[in-house]
């Protein structure tokens, strides 16, 4: 998002940006997309940020030698230095190490959440879009109900039923995302079902399920996957919010929301404990949004 990268090449701006139901996007005034499409370099930066974060999650030992859970003899509340990039917290743990080790938990939770939303939502959307009739009515009424409860409250309701913890928080966030996937998948399916090749597939002896899996699913999948990437960012945000409120990962395990919650009591004297981990979360979320948008544009 740096200012020096902000000049949009004219050629990049001619394609209209994503419409919600890409298969039948209407005509839009040309040139409107120019402002909205950030230059490619930001996509590249976003990919690098995400790549590093994934490496943090997979091989945290490569990036830090400090123990994220036990600070040992280290002094508490040290300012950032070459030894401790993000300083140390109230019991002498290296905060950078906690953020690096927390990546696996936060990313895994986001993936679980998106997987729940993607699988359940797409299934509902596919069936509702291809069946019609009372099946569709019932399924879409369920989606309406999911949509009618404000997302955070729906998440909290499910968390209170399932109990606190990383995986439970992730499932709750995923259930709150089902409706969005279901609506997109249904819109895609309804469009695809009208296509000539689907009629032809039926005509040449295809059954409902064979047509669904061989023709409808593959054609609907790219738009749904693009939404999934976009959703990873908001899932990370929501899971860290649950962690901050104390409903997610229990201490002392490192989780991004929890790290920020632990640092907030020292914000007057040791601002880095809160500010630096928060900036990391923000960078990761912005990057997934950027990549998701780029993917969606590519999927059109």
């Amino acid at each position, binding site marked *: 998002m740096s*200012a020096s990268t*902000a000049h949009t090449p004219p050629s990049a701006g001619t394609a209209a940006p994503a419409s919600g139901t890409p298969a039948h996007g209407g005509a839009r005034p040309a040139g409107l997309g120019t402002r*909205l499409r950030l230059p490619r370099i930001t996509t590249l930066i976003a990919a690098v940020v995400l790549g590093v974060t994934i490496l943090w999650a997979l091989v945290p030992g490569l990036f830090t030698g400090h123990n994220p859970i036990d600070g040992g003899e280290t002094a508490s509340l040290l300012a950032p230095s070459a030894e401790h990039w993000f300083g140390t917290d109230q019991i002498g743990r290296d905060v950078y190490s906690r953020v690096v080790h927390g990546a696996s938990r936060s990313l895994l939770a986001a993936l679980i959440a998106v997987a729940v939303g993607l699988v359940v939502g797409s299934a509902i959307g596919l069936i509702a879009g291809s069946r019609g009739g009372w099946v569709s009515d019932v399924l879409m009424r369920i989606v309406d109900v999911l949509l009618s*409860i404000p997302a955070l*409250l729906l998440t909290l309701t499910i968390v209170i039923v399932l109990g606190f913890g990383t995986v439970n928080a992730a499932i709750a966030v995923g259930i709150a995302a089902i409706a969005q996937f279901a609506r997109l998948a249904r819109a895609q399916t309804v469009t695809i079902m009208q296509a000539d090749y689907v009629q032809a597939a039926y005509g040449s002896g295809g059954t409902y399920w064979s047509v669904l899996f061989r023709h409808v699913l593959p054609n609907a999948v790219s738009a749904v996957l693009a939404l999934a990437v*976009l959703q990873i960012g908001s899932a990370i945000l929501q899971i860290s919010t649950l962690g901050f409120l104390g409903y997610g990962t229990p201490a002392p395990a490192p989780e991004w929301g929890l790290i920020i919650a632990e640092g907030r009591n020292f914000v007057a004297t040791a601002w880095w404990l809160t500010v630096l981990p928060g900036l990391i*979360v923000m960078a990761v979320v912005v990057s997934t*949004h950027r990549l998701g948008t780029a993917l969606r544009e590519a999927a059109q």
Partner: protein
Amino acid sequence: MAVYLAGRLGQALLVLFLAYTAASMLLMILPGDGVLARYANPALGLSGEQVEAIRQSYGADAPWYVQYWQSLSGFLTGDLGYSVNSGAAVSTLVASALPSTALLAVSGFAAAVVLAVAVAVLASYGKPRWLASAFDSAPSLFISVPVFWLGIVIIQVLSFQLGWVTMVSPGPLESLILPTLTLAIPLSAPLAQILIRAIAEVRAQPFVHVTRAKGAGEAWMLVHSVIRNAMLPALTIAGLLFGELVAGAVVTETVFGRAGIGALTAQAVANRDNPVLLAVVVIATVGFVLVNLLVDLLYPVVDPRLRHRGRVGAAARRRLGARAQASGTGPSRTGADRADQEEEIRA
């Protein structure tokens, strides 16, 4: 029109009823006997008969369908049950928490509108160009900020570093400033995106040149054309903004230690106080469904093209929904919108 109104109202009521049923199943029926779980705790030293008496007084010994029916009729008459944690009537808790949250929501929303207009104007007309580009990407940053973190940083910078606002026993107005700012920033993002698009769209229209040739200034254009253009997409995301307000209130009130519905919600979850959470969920859902109903009824008022529910209107509305989705602010959440989508696809 009357048929449409009645149908839309019926649909809203059905969704409300189903949402209530789902929430009460999850929070009341499924967890089993919350009263027993709490009072059978040996540390309390209650005898079996005492626990039984408490269960009877809460109605927890009745079969689930009786409980469901009692709670449903209670909600319809304003009796929201009793907090398992404090024993206070939930309706009292909610009534005492609501004014503070309503105030925060109103001031947060107003600040978000001001902020969104400022960002959109600077992104569209800012000089030099890098400044405009910086503001252009501000909305995508704003929606990526963890709100709880933003609140802490705002306290740190504005209160501890600069000393502009005190955190120690502030007045009622002073205590509202920082939470309002915290709530407004993420809320302004989708609004700013809509405004930036509306300005770009208006500037690309041929009539702009004519109007300008007739001597209209940029400010006149903004006020007269952009507002009309931005109105519909802004209405489309009204439901989304309401959801953001609710979520923002929970987090903001927790960070700033303000009393209110959000703080009540956070406490209810921490203490597993299911009746309180159920009441908050139901009230927020009623608000959400009402907002969406209102938006649906306002569409034809705001846009004459939508007064005839034919193809043109459907197409226009679908585009609006698609646009809200394209900006990463989620799809519009109205039932009519979906019906139109389908209608257009079939046509």
